[in-house]
């Protein structure tokens, strides 16, 4: 019989292995994603459920793999810069900065002070919009129908407007260059930024009034997805997630890269390491970012924004290697570069915070319900562009 001509039929096949609890029907295997309304991007969680309780969870990623590291090894140093925008497409400016920082270390370039200020300002603005959006998405996953998300996006739009008028693009900014920033601020930009920062404080007050004492939110987030301090350290968790577990690790304080040692800010720490702490740590970090921004926007000096020695074309750093890392909104974002003196990096490697923060997802979700798993994933704060690269 011609197989092509045979009518295609669908049957529910009997279980291949009756001893397997998934197949004998006592457990339910559900694939959350990649086409699922609450997975952040094309991410899949293979979840085995007992009733609604998660007994096994396997994060599956790679749907967005773009071969970024290998492409970067075949592109000029400058040519990788726009690709770093697309790593964590929520925070392109911090990715830019991490890459620029690494290359500057490799090539021994100095950054003018105004450029350092611009980097701090854009990075903190990025942190604000990322944290606001993450809190909104978290509530969206909790079923708040987008209201907090829309409030967060309203403020995020203002920040993106700033980015657009400074860098030319709202999300794919491609702003940092080796030895400084691509261009200076357009007229009136700093005043606009100041007013956005002022408005953001009012937004934070409102956001916290909406959420932080809401009984349903407390019930849904407190005690859920607890990440113990030891596990956070052992698994290499960084960023707000680690700080919510009480790990005092903020690269802005540890490395004091850029000019962060000139600003006064505190690093909030949580004691429980649950979803609520992760949410609150982000809220508190936004307040600290506002302090940094207030000071930076006041003190920003005049001057050039790029090292005049930096070459745009024919950029060939000396042979060597360097590792640069910054505190991106999601955690420690590191770039590792080896130069053989050619126009392309010989080795290009990224330490993406989202990816490493994602590895403990199963530990957080086991024994909790599906609804919790979704909320926990939301609190981890991943961007698939960075996870899959």
């Amino acid at each position: 019989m011609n197989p092509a001509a045979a009518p295609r039929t669908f049957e529910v096949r009997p279980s291949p292995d009756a001893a397997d609890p998934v197949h004998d029907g006592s457990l339910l295997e559900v694939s959350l994603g990649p086409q699922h309304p609450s997975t952040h991007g094309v991410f899949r969680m293979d979840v085995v459920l007992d009733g609604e309780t998660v007994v096994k969870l396997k994060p599956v990623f790679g749907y967005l793999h773009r071969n970024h590291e290998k492409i970067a090894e075949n592109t000029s140093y400058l040519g990788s810069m726009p690709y770093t925008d697309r790593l964590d497409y929520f925070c392109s400016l911090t990715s830019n900065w991490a890459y620029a920082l690494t290359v500057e270390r490799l090539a021994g370039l100095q950054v003018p002070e105004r450029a350092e200020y611009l980097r701090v300002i854009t990075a903190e603005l990025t942190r604000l919009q990322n944290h606001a959006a993450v809190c909104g998405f978290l509530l969206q996953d909790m079923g708040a129908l987008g209201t907090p998300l829309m409030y967060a996006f309203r403020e995020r739009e203002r920040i993106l407007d700033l980015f657009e008028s400074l860098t030319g693009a709202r999300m794919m900014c491609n702003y940092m260059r080796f030895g400084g920033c691509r261009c200076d601020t357009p007229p009136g930009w700093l005043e606009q930024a100041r007013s956005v920062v002022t408005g953001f404080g009012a937004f934070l007050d409102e956001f916290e009034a909406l959420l932080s004492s809401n009984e349903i939110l407390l019930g849904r987030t407190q005690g859920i997805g607890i990440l113990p301090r030891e596990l956070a350290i052992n698994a290499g968790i960084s960023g707000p997630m680690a700080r919510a577990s009480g790990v005092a690790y903020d690269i802005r304080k540890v490395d004091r890269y850029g000019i962060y040692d000139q600003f006064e800010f505190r690093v909030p720490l949580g004691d429980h390491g649950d979803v609520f702490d992760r949410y609150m740590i982000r809220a508190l970090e936004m307040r600290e970012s506002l302090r940094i921004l207030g000071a930076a926007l006041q003190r920003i000096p005049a001057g050039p924004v790029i090292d005049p020695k930096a070459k745009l074309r024919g950029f060939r750093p000396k042979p060597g290697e360097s590792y640069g890392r910054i505190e991106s909104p999601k955690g420690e974002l590191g770039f590792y570069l080896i130069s053989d003196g050619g126009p392309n990096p010989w080795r290009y490697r990224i330490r993406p915070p989202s990816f490493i923060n994602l590895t403990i997802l199963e530990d957080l979700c086991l024994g909790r319900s599906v609804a919790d798993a979704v909320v926990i994933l939301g609190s981890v704060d991943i961007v698939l562009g960075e996870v899959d690269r």
Partner: protein
Amino acid sequence: MLGGGILHGLAVTAKNFVGSFTDPERLVTLGYPEERAPAKENARQFPFLVFDGADPQAGLRCVACQICEKECPPQCILIVKSKTKKPDHLGKPQFFPATFDIDLSVCMSCQICVEVCPFDAIKMDQEFELATNDRFEGLLRHRDQLARPNAHFQKLHPTDAAAIDARRAEELAKAAAAATAAAAAPRKPAPESPPAA
């Protein structure tokens, strides 16, 4: 008290509900096709080629040096150098692109071509409504489609355009002076646009 947090939240949403009618700061949405956000000078979408004068063929600033083609990270530019030469704005004979294609479906709007161009020939357009039925030919822009007059550039990026025009006028004047003095004037490096703020 128990339930107080929920009431707080309800008060916030009520405030926003009323505010969306009374406070333009709250209702930030624009009715897109009719209303548009004010254009930002730095905004960039896709590249175009600048030409001087009225004839896009003769006035094209591009000299087919192929730097942008080499530097373009996603490799979306294809340039074929001409066999013949045409005079540039200083009257020097230069090559020109026989073919200059940009595949907009590949381009990622990074502006690196603009930064590396030594001739101010390629600039960023702000047009973004490029929907088409044909994703191959429809988004493949050829030289004549890419060519836009300098006036277009002046309209989009007035600060940049003014600086470049001034420099080019200066070069032209120097070249004219040099021609009259029968002495060669070395090219000065391009001054950056003056920092604002």
